[in-house]
């Protein structure tokens, strides 16, 4: 007998899987949590039990200093939750360890994407298109103005700037989990083999990526380097450090930022960015649309981001959709 999806309930602080009494990416402490990926707004600490991929659990351990209640699940693996719910973790292509969660109950299939993108990323396996009835998708860049360019062109811009101004360094602001490592890995792919200098806040996460088999080349800490050694080099820092006192130790830095928001000129200007790099770990508008078309669900539920525009697109294309008002997901401009 069909359950009409009454077993899955969006609440303001997370998606509730009722028969299992599990919450997906809950914004507050719960007894049982299913976590899609390691970004702090999705992976909060303090749950009784946390089901996530081994890499996500390692990231959470790094951040919260505990493995208590950790339940690892590999990509493609299905675990049985109480109340007859099966959960399968599938690659989401967002950051190391990121997963979509496929939930099956009473013959009904629901996917919660967490955050995802459809581009190649040397630090994580690609998003896997999987059929389902209800597709709960993020919409961070859910506006038709967002068509992110290929990353190769952005890397070329960065390397050209290093070559043009060899007496300066390029200071790239990038989110500490995922974006920073992806940018370094892409730099290596583009043939840049000089040391990359790190702000202290990025060190542990970069080491974790290396432990998970991602080669980031030679990394050095800004705090251990002399000013002159950093001329003509890439320096990576969290976005909050770009205009901070910390940057005074760098040799005449070109302020740069790797973010999908850099598409909008005024956004880049407001942050004092001289070299915007349009690099996103989220799906852009064409990717969001392509994904809905390929997954082809009966219904799409749209969460954090600019829901209205994607909702409008669904309406224009006779696709059933609704917006969920979930709280607590960071719409931070740094992402």
């Amino acid at each position, binding site marked *: 007998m069909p359950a009409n999806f009454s077993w899955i309930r969006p609440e303001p602080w997370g998606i509730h899987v009722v028969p299992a009494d599990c919450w997906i990416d809950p914004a507050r402490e719960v007894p049982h949590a299913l976590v899609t990926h390691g970004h702090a707004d999705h992976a909060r600490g303090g749950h009784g039990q946390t089901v996530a991929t081994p890499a996500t659990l390692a990231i959470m351990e790094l951040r919260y200093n505990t493995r208590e209640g950790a339940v690892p699940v590999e990509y493609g693996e299905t675990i049985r939750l109480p109340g007859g719910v099966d959960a399968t973790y599938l690659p989401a292509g967002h950051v190391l360890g990121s997963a979509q969660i496929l939930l099956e109950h009473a013959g009904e299939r629901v996917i919660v994407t967490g955050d995802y993108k459809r581009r190649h990323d040397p630090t994580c396996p690609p998003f896997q298109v999987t059929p389902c009835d209800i597709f709960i998708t993020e919409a961070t860049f859910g506006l038709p*103005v*967002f068509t992110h360019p290929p990353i190769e062109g952005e890397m070329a811009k960065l390397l050209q700037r290093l070559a043009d101004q060899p007496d300066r360094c390029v200071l790239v602001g990038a989110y500490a989990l995922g974006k920073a490592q992806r940018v370094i890995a892409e730099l290596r792919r583009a043939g840049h083999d000089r040391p990359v200098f790190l702000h202290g806040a990025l060190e542990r996460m970069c080491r974790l990526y290396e432990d998970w088999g991602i080669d980031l080349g030679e990394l050095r800490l800004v705090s251990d380097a002399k000013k002159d050694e950093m001329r003509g080099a890439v320096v990576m820092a969290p976005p909050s450090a770009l205009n*901070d006192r910390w940057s005074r130790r760098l040799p005449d830095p070109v*302020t740069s930022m790797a973010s999908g928001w850099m598409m*909008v000129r005024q956004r*880049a*200007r407001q942050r004092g960015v001289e070299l915007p790099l349009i690099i996103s770990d989220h799906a852009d508008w064409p990717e969001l649309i392509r994904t809905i078309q390929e997954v082809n669900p009966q219904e799409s539920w749209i969460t954090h981001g*600019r829901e209205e*525009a994607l909702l*409008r697109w669904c309406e224009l294309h006779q696709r059933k959709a609704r917006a969920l008002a979930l709280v607590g997901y960071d719409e931070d401009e740094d992402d």
Partner: protein
Amino acid sequence: MEEFAALIDSLVYTTSRNAKLQLVADYLRRTPDPDRGWALAALTEGLDFPAVKSSTIRNLLHDRVDPVLWTLSRDFVGDTAETASLLWPQGPALPGNPPSPPTVSEAVELLAEMTRATVGVKLAQLLDRLDADGRYALLKMATGAMRVGVSARLAKTAFAQAFEVSVEEVEEYWHAIPAPYTALFDWAANGAAPPDTAALPLFRPFMLAHPLEELEVDLLDYVAEWKWDGIRVQLAHAGGETRLYSRGGEDITGTFPEMAEALTIPAVLDGELLVRGAHQGGEEGGAASFNALQQRLGRKAVSAKMLAEAPAFVRLYDVLQLDGEDLRERPWTERRAALEALLPRLPADRFDISAVIAADHFAHLATIREGTRDDAIEGVMLKKRDSPYVAGRRTGLWYKWKRDPLLVDCVLMYAQRGSGRRASFYSDYTFGCWDGDPDEGAELLPVGKAYSGFTDEELKRLDRHVRQHTVKRFGPVRETDRSLVFEVAFDSIHVSKRHKSGLAMRFPRIHRIRWDKPVHEADRIAALQALVRD
């Protein structure tokens, strides 16, 4: 167009003035005529395409993008041209028919040909030939607001740097040659003869003064005049036309139409534009304060009411040309005589002359300067009697000796991060004064904001103070615990509805940092109100 689009993009992300100058100069050097001339016109907002409006762009997009998606996008991006450049549907590249982006000149030519009837089709065809950055540059150029932080003056300075000519000469010839300024490039880049400027009501670069500082001059060699607190203007009449220019060479004829009508003699005059007002204590027909003049600045259309209530007049300082003769090489004494002889030929309600101060010697002048009560007086000018009228600031010819500033003690309330070189420093300070007795629970109300007047060393210490005394954060702004006193200098203070204190300072700057002074000894709002002379 790709090169121009790349220039626009670089300018958007560059904050340093020198870096901007270099970008524009490089572009002007390497780009051929007439593209570089049209680009220069675009940067100086010298282009006008009446058929292309912001609404044209919106309508064009409404035909191609769902209106709801357009509105959501426009609201997020905050700029019509940028939104349109990003949303424009990129057609598939047809085999054997690759996209052929237009040159800047071709784009200008096509934009100029467009009419209200054709713009829908023609502008769309043009946009189809460009990528997103190209579309952005084109739409910004077409609607006439580049907003890349390049003033007309900066563009002219870049031109002068590119070809190693003086910016004063560029200013002088600028208005004589229409875009794309081919003759101007020919002169600057190829050494051709400069254009003939005699028969046109052109802007001539102003002669400027150095601050007097500690210097004393001999009044046998120098004459003293009042320095008025209005806006410095130049009135030029030639070929039956009159134009009014601001200090930067901007044509402001439309803002003060009564002045354009008042000069009908072929002449170029230098003076201070003021408005009449009853607020002033001083002599009859005195000028209103700068605050009154401000009401008329920046307006394109002037109402009859304004013309009647705040009529403009020019207090003349100098004459550059008269009846077809260029007087700039003549000594000041001769030009002054010519100016005095000219005055009776001009309408008395629109012109008077800045009086020479009768001072016997320098100390006498100092006494007169100290004693003046007229708020429309900003200070004293000292002009060498035998000096020609030369463009710009030349040492030893003209000096300005401003009145001593007003000083009050204020308390630091908020600090904001600076930009460019100061991006990591809290360098913009909002300060306030007490609205009563601070020992009886009075509050601080903000009275002004300043970001200059301190050394780099002091800035470092102020930055540290702000970081250690923060009580709240609002984005780039920090609220401090109100524990530091600034001695703030300013030129005058006016009633203003914009601030909660009801006051606004003119040219506030940090005079001294009073690390030693307890905050309850800072000044009260009432003390500031007593300085208002509106």
